[in-house]
């Protein structure tokens, strides 16, 4: 199968007063057309930075190196015109908070139609409106006539996220990136949005990149899981249950998530904190929080190595049981 996305040695650092934030370090990732993958990791480990790098839209204070290829087109060195063509048309992206990602002073109609116009030129008004309403229908919205003419603040969180999805899909991209699409929503709406994404993935044969900190959700949606920790990929492979995971961090993530049905929603937090992202010490980034760490882990930085076909881990002592 052909790789639709190829990321090689991608490094992104944010310049700040205190130095450099190593948001992504040496990221390698290949994604095939039509695949559904999930990128999982705790807050601040670089997931959104990775999503932004895929469309070369990282913050202005970022220094980036490496290559990102979409359909064999290099993105990181691409010019404005090329990027404008790729963004929205080849890659649609749904942001963490739909409420903040929708422009508050334009209607849903304007925000959908301006996207279509940006890529397909000016269409006849009825044609534009027909496409817009069809998108709202596809994203499962009722009361479409009203929502189409509404401003973002007049919609519920779930409706806003569906509109965001409609915008992301308005120019029929092959790739859809969903960056924590449900974090801002309550549990029932979360489930609906996830079901919708699943359906859209199938109907449109999308290449789906789901970004989440919920490993259970990831396992449910994706065939392949990429686990990130402190700006690095630490594990990648077909993981569908806890014992498929080989990195101690991935294991810990599995234990982290509480049963949705459980009465008390007390998260079992992994002890310790994500390391300071401005320093790069010569040791495993997870050292200090890892329950199975050995002395070597504190003196050397583990390489990212293939352990079996389609499965790679960044750990000296991958868990195998």
């Amino acid at each position, binding site marked *: 199968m052909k790789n639709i996305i190829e990321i090689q040695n991608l490094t992104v650092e944010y310049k700040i007063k205190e130095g450099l934030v190593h948001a992504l370090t040496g990221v390698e990732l290949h994604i095939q057309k039509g695949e559904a993958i999930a990128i999982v990791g705790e807050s601040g480990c670089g997931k959104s930075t990775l999503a932004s790098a895929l469309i070369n839209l990282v913050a202005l204070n970022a220094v980036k190196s490496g290559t990102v290829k979409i359909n064999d087109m290099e993105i990181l060195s691409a010019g404005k015109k090329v*990027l404008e063509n790729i963004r*929205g*048309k080849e890659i649609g992206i749904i942001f963490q908070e739909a409420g*903040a990602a929708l*422009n508050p*002073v334009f209607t849903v109609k304007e925000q959908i139609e301006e996207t279509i116009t940006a890529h397909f030129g000016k269409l006849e008004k009825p044609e534009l409106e027909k496409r817009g309403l069809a998108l709202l229908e596809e994203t499962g919205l009722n009361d479409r006539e009203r929502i189409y003419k509404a401003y973002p603040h007049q919609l519920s969180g779930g409706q806003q996220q569906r509109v965001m999805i409609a915008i992301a899909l308005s120019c029929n991209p092959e790739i859809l990136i969903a960056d924590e699409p449900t974090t801002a929503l309550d549990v029932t709406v979360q489930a609906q949005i996830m079901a919708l994404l699943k359906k859209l993935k199938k109907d449109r044969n999308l290449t789906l990149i789901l970004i989440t900190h919920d490993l259970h959700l990831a396992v449910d949606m994706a065939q392949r899981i990429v686990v990130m920790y402190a700006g690095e990929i630490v594990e990648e492979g077909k993981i569908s249950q806890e014992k498929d995971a080989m990195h101690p961090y991935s294991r810990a993530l599995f234990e982290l998530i509480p049963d949705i049905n459980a009465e008390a929603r007390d998260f079992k937090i992994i002890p310790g904190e994500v390391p300071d992202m401005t320093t790069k010490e010569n040791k495993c980034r997870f050292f200090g929080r890892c329950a199975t760490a050995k002395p070597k882990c504190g003196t050397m930085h583990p390489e990212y190595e293939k352990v079996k076909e389609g499965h790679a881990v960044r750990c000296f002592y991958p868990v195998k049981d």
Partner: protein
Amino acid sequence: MGKYVLKRLLLIFPVLIGITLITFAIIHLTPGGYTSVNMQMNIKVSPDSVARLKTLYGLDKPLHTQYLDWVSRVLRFDFGTSFIDQRPVMDKIYERLPATLLLNLISLVLIFIVGIGIGVASAVKNGGTFDKVMSVITFIGYSLPSFWLALLLMILFGVVLRWLPVSGMVSLGFDYMSPMQKIGDLILHLILPVFVTAFGGLAYISRYVKSSMVETLSQYYIKAAYAKGMPEKTVIYKSALKNSLLPVITLLGLSLPGLIGGSFIFETIFSWPGMGRLAYESALSFDYPVIMGVATIAAFLTLLGNLIADIAYALVDPRIRYR
């Protein structure tokens, strides 16, 4: 919306009462007074005639009675007559209003069009050369006393270079000019007063627009707009501009009092035949009815301007809906 407008219109009245009350109190508490300036200094005027004049103008009554008398007349749209030339106050204001409106409206339009242009350009290239140059100029704009700037420009362009007229609204031979010459003459006379009136406001608005635009450009929805593949120009001049200009509409209303206040000074400096100069002249001669008339009209225009700005804001910002 209709209800809101009505409520705001009704609110104008208490504010007007407050303003006129304060103006009234201040001019009557000021040492001196109409009779002292115009008569007591004059040895030919007997104390008797001073008293008679006071009675004639009702200046011998207690202050609150005088104020209530004034209010009851104003309610019948009668602002009284000038003490100085006995002409109706309304007539005097009416002939001065156009000059003031002309000067201030041109300044206002200039302030907003040029100010928004400078602000947006500075924000788009934040920290660039243009932005830096503009920062310096606007800093000067803030800090220079504008009356001083006015005098300086008058000396430079009027006296030294002799390019521009420095006083009045038209030249002496205006009545004999062709229509085109008339317009040209008016424009020449407008240049300095408009520039001086607009300068401070321009500095303020352009900095405000800049910071508002910079703030908007950092919003999440701007990133989202780029992520949709919208061209940079569309993102800046459509997605961002509307958001950052909304608060500027309110400034439009807020800048009116400053303009009117400025009129008093600049119209006097440039001998501009407007309401500001009328007020200044009346204040010097304690012409109470005219002062009160000008204050009331100026306050009314300011409040009306504020109301219009607020309504405009409500109309363009979808998030605001008044009940």
